[in-house]
């Protein structure tokens, strides 16, 4: 497998404070990665750096051919079209119904509405939410909203899914359903990076762990 993410001696600052000290790591295409660390260790900042919301302070970081140190606005848009992002607070558009939310990445890439709707329905079916397609986010439970968010993150067949604490706050059943969806996406070849304070118990597929401790990122086998 080729390297999808390559970070060499990167440092990340947040409000003038260095939260990631010089660290290097890599992620291969198709990897299932857990990014672990205690609260405030810099997991979210690293995830944000991976979708080019934060810039690295020093070092070099590449996602495929995108150099995150020198990335501009148009290249950021292009990079994000190849990524799927899942958030702890779901970030579904509140004034849109669920099916339209799931259609979003396809509409951005220019796929016509009827095809996008058809595909969104298939993905909602996969995450067992087809019966709630016309509901609005506030009408769904947290677990359901997160499943909708995963459908949105996978519908455009991204290279990598970045998930920031996707199961914290969810009940055990919903958390297990959400993790199953990530595993399923990974089986399709999508690289998964999940920021989480811990690795779920009974997680039985091969994964890689990036652990942040005292600002340093460690690659654990």
């Amino acid at each position, binding site marked *: 497998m080729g390297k999808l993410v390559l970070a060499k001696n990167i440092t990340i600052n947040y409000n003038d404070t260095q939260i990631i000290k010089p660290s290097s790591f890599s992620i291969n295409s198709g990897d299932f990665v857990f990014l672990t660390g205690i609260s405030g260790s810099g997991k979210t900042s690293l995830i944000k750096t991976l979708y080019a919301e934060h810039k690295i302070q020093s070092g070099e970081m590449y996602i495929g051919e995108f150099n995150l140190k020198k990335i501009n606005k148009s290249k*950021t848009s292009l990079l994000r*079209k190849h990524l799927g992002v899942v958030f702890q607070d779901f970030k579904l558009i509140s004034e849109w119904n669920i099916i339209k939310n799931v259609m979003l990445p396809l509409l951005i890439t220019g796929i016509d509405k009827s095809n996008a709707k058809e595909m969104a329905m298939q993905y909602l079916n996969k995450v067992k939410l087809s019966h709630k397609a016309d509901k609005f986010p506030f009408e769904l439970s947290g677990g359901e909203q997160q499943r909708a968010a995963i459908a949105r993150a996978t519908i455009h067949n991204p290279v990598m899914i970045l998930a920031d604490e996707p199961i914290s706050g969810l009940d055990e059943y919903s958390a297990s359903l959400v993790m199953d969806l990530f595993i399923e996406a990974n089986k399709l070849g999508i690289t998964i990076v999940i920021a989480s304070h811990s690795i779920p118990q009974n997680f039985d597929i091969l994964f890689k762990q990036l652990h942040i401790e005292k600002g340093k990122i460690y690659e654990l086998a």
Partner: protein
Amino acid sequence: MNSLKSHLTLVLSLIAILLSIFLFRIFSQVMHLYQKNIVNNYSIVIVSTKPITSLNISEISSINPININSEIKKLKEKYKNIDFSNLKIPFFYKLKLKNFPSPNKLQEIQKQLKNYDFIKKVMTKSSSQTKIYNLLILLKTTTKIFMFLIAILGFLLIIKQLEVWKLLHYERMYIMELFGAPVWFKGASLFKIAFLDSIISLILTMCLIFLITHSALFNNIINELNINFQLNYFNEIILLLITSFLISFISSVIVVIGKK
């Protein structure tokens, strides 16, 4: 309700701006026609010892001789003992001006005319002319200030609305941005609102314009001024449409590209 409020603020602001632009334009047109009317009826009378065909004064548009034969005839009948054939009668002329002169300009023209040796007398209607001119200037200035204030108020309302829009649409546009949406995609719904509000504002403004220009008061004023005022509705619609679109489009672009 919030959405209606958001529409109303932009629509009302646009109406205020469009209406002030329209009224300013109409007032300027009416003033221009009225000034033309006055200048057509206004003339300076001069008495010269020799015939004049031209004068080197740029403000003069035409020199028309005044026929005094009928007056001489009357005088001949009245004063039969006077031999008019031995009298050297001067030449009388009516000078038309290109523009309605300000009191200062009129004084300047008078001075220039008096510089000619052969011009013996210059007669102007300076007192009544000055009053009309001052009244026009006063009206023009107050209208300008009033329209300017309305337009400023309109713009202030739009700026306030931009702040509300930023808060209302920021979350949605941010989420879209996370999935790589280009600017036009992020702003699509805002552009639609802006387009719709521009159309609504234009329609309402045109209704108001129609009411104003067809009111008895407006027509009475036009009749009183004795001017040939014709409003080209098509031109006005195009001008106001462009203005309305530009304002709302620029406002939405500011929201889309601006930071929270």
